[in-house]
């Protein structure tokens, strides 16, 4: 961890491009956070029918009204405030999604690399409890509550369902604890092929292109930011997982790790104290790179108007306005340029980080 920080400080001091990109990104983040407090003359959804398709940098026609600095779109929305609020939306969606996806990918990828196919074992009885418990949970903890809220049965029914779920889980584990003492064959340990499972999952998710997958999944759900974020998390964790798995396999071979193993450290200590800090660098690279890609993906989706509600202020929605008048260049150039700049900044950071971390690992 310390080394990652030192590397970043080194990059900040030595590489101007990295410093510029990092400065820009921090400013953008700050802007996104304080934006509602800023005195902008127009809101992002404010319609100004008197000034539609106004080119940028034109003086105002009505003396009592502020000018539209970067022009307006087909219904008179201010391009500047849409760009700023679009940046806010893009960051507010992408950063949490990427954080969650990185976490998921890190857990699954590092787990797959660490345990491989024979490393993770569990008793047969625990395996049975896990499988049956999952079924119970899916039915009483997930399916029934959804149906209950859909039918409108109220809180008592919801509580009853969840209570049944907890009760069944307790009964199940109690039953198997008793059985465990009687039946010896249940005590045998079986290996769970974690690596195979994760690899198959990644393979399955990447059989069809990611954008197609996201579009198809989005067609099943009503347009909503939360659901779309969920879809994004569930589809983009694979790249982080792949990287984390490869890094984990590499770390497992290193002498220091074998030494740690040989002095009899517990799995937790091995993973948390010795493996994870070394994973931090590559994961940070994947995080910044993925964030850039995610920004582009989010605006592509809102440009296509799939998966997001039309009320969501975003760069993609602004750019989509160009379809009604192709000579209104300012509706592509400003938001598109802003988007490109942001993606470029993320890619620059990730580029320098990759460079320095690969130099470190080479020795």
């Amino acid at each position: 961890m310390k080394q990652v920080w030192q590397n970043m400080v080194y990059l900040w001091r030595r590489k101007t491009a990295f410093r510029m990109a990092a400065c820009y990104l921090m400013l953008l983040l700050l802007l996104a956070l304080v934006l509602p407090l800023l005195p902008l003359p127009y809101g992002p959804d404010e319609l100004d029918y008197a000034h539609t398709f106004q080119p940028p940098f034109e003086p105002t026609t009505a003396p009592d009204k502020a000018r539209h600095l970067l022009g307006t779109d087909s219904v008179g929305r201010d391009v500047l405030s849409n760009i700023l609020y679009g940046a806010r939306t893009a960051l507010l969606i992408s950063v949490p999604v990427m954080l969650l996806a990185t976490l998921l990918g890190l857990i699954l990828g590092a787990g797959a690399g660490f345990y491989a196919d024979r490393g993770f074992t569990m008793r047969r009885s625990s395996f049975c409890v896990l499988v049956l418990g999952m079924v119970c949970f899916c039915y009483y903890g997930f399916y029934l509550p959804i149906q209950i809220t859909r039918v409108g049965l109220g809180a008592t029914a919801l509580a009853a369902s969840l209570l049944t779920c907890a009760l069944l889980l307790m009964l199940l584990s109690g039953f198997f604890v008793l059985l465990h003492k009687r039946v010896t064959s249940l005590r045998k340990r079986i290996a769970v092929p974690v690596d195979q499972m994760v690899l198959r999952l990644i393979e399955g998710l990447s059989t069809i292109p990611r954008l197609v997958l996201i579009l198809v999944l989005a067609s099943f759900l009503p347009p909503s930011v939360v659901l779309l974020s969920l879809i994004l998390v569930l589809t983009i964790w694979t790249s982080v997982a792949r990287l984390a798995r490869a890094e984990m396999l590499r770390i497992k071979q290193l002498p220091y790790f074998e030494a740690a193993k040989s002095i009899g450290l517990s799995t937790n200590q091995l993973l948390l104290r010795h493996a994870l800090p070394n994973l931090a660098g590559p994961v940070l690279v994947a995080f910044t790179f993925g964030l850039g890609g995610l920004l582009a993906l989010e605006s592509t989706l809102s440009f296509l108007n799939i998966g997001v509600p039309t009320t969501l202020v975003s760069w993609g929605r602004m750019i989509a306005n160009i379809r009604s008048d192709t000579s209104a260049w300012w509706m592509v150039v400003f938001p598109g340029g802003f988007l490109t700049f942001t993606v470029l900044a993320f890619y620059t950071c990730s580029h320098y980080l990759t460079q320095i971390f690969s130099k470190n690992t080479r020795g």
Partner: protein
Amino acid sequence: MLYYFLKRLLLAIPALWLMATAVFLLSRLLPGSFATDRILENSAGYYSKGAESDRQAAYQSYIRRTGLDQPLFYFSLAPATQPTDSLNRLYSETKQARLRKLAWHYGSEHNAEAYLSSTELIDKQLQTYPDASLKHHLQTLRAEVKYHPLQDAARKVAVVASHPQVKQAAKQVLERLQTMQQERASFAFLVPQVSWHGRQNQYHQWLMRLLQGDMGTSYRSSRPVLALLTEAIGNTWWLLICSMAITLALSLELSILMVKKKGRFLRKLLLPFLFITDSIPVFVLALLLLVLLANPDFIQLFPVYGMGYYSPQRLSFWQQLSQWWQYMTLPMLCLVLSSLPYITNQVYASIHSAMQADYTRTARAKGLAEGAVIRRHILRNSLLPIITIASDILPALVAGTLIIETIFAVPGIGRLLIDSVLARDYPVLIGIVLVIAAFRIIAFLLADLGYAWADPRIKQQLA
């Protein structure tokens, strides 16, 4: 070798089956079908003034024809109170929802159905003997689920109603309401019930038809999915193949130029340019080019949208080709520009590492010219990673075509996909997913063939 390919192909079948099944099941789990949107629309346009009963009949015949009245899968796990009777599916969706609500609330599907049919009887009586004073109470009877308000409303209808027939019906409603309340089991929904439906289910029939090559018909245009796909696939195919070939050739040439000693200047110029191009999202790039090159305000070089107009006389092959090129150049340019950075980088890295190898030094020491060293010795050796890259960029290219076809209005698979996602046209969606997945599997197989061709040692390993 042949054995290996057969194995790969056979392994691909379960993957395709799983994918199609997942899309099918997910699409059918959704509440609100296409038919209810279209047929039962009350506030439809000026021309659809059909009576409620006509619409109901049309809906029922649609549901029967498409097999939507059957259960979804071979078996189902649902609360015992959930109405599973296949006849229920013939009801309109609002009635289904009402029945479900009552059944869950009172814990008996049978009683709920009896109650619901009795309230319908009142409605029928009121059609012959209209009575405006009952409107409020009837609304309660139709929307409420709790017992006391329902009882109140039913009593009031029985008291207020002027006609004995209506009174009779109201009394029946009250009776059935009381039975429902007496036999009420509030938490009956906690008991699960597994029911086996056998082969008479939607999934089985869909799968059987799919195996016979029938992908169903589009919800939107009622045309066979297969016809839609074959129509669209040609444009996408040529767009993809041409831009892929151009991209690969360009990236190879550029990389060769860059690794040469004289290419230092080019390298300093090109690599940052490619880095910046890489960060421009495809749709922004496409729109920028569109605004710049196909716009009367700037430079009108290319036609903007579509694939050309219908011309009355038959054009010769060359005329057709030239017209096709006019419309395809801009989309192709976008696709090439968007995929060039990544590929050039990879190809350059692979050639660059081959430059450092011993055999290169030997070739140089023999006194071969630089061009000959690169083309004869280095290129052959760096082919393996390049083949991997060529099969790897397919998803990126497919994603790019999606967006580019939408922007330039090219009638291909990508645009069909976007349109069907927007219209929730699931049969077409399943077809497209299958086509894309099959395409990718074939690409992997071709990549394997390419490996065997580039490195004969691999052939022996596979055999």
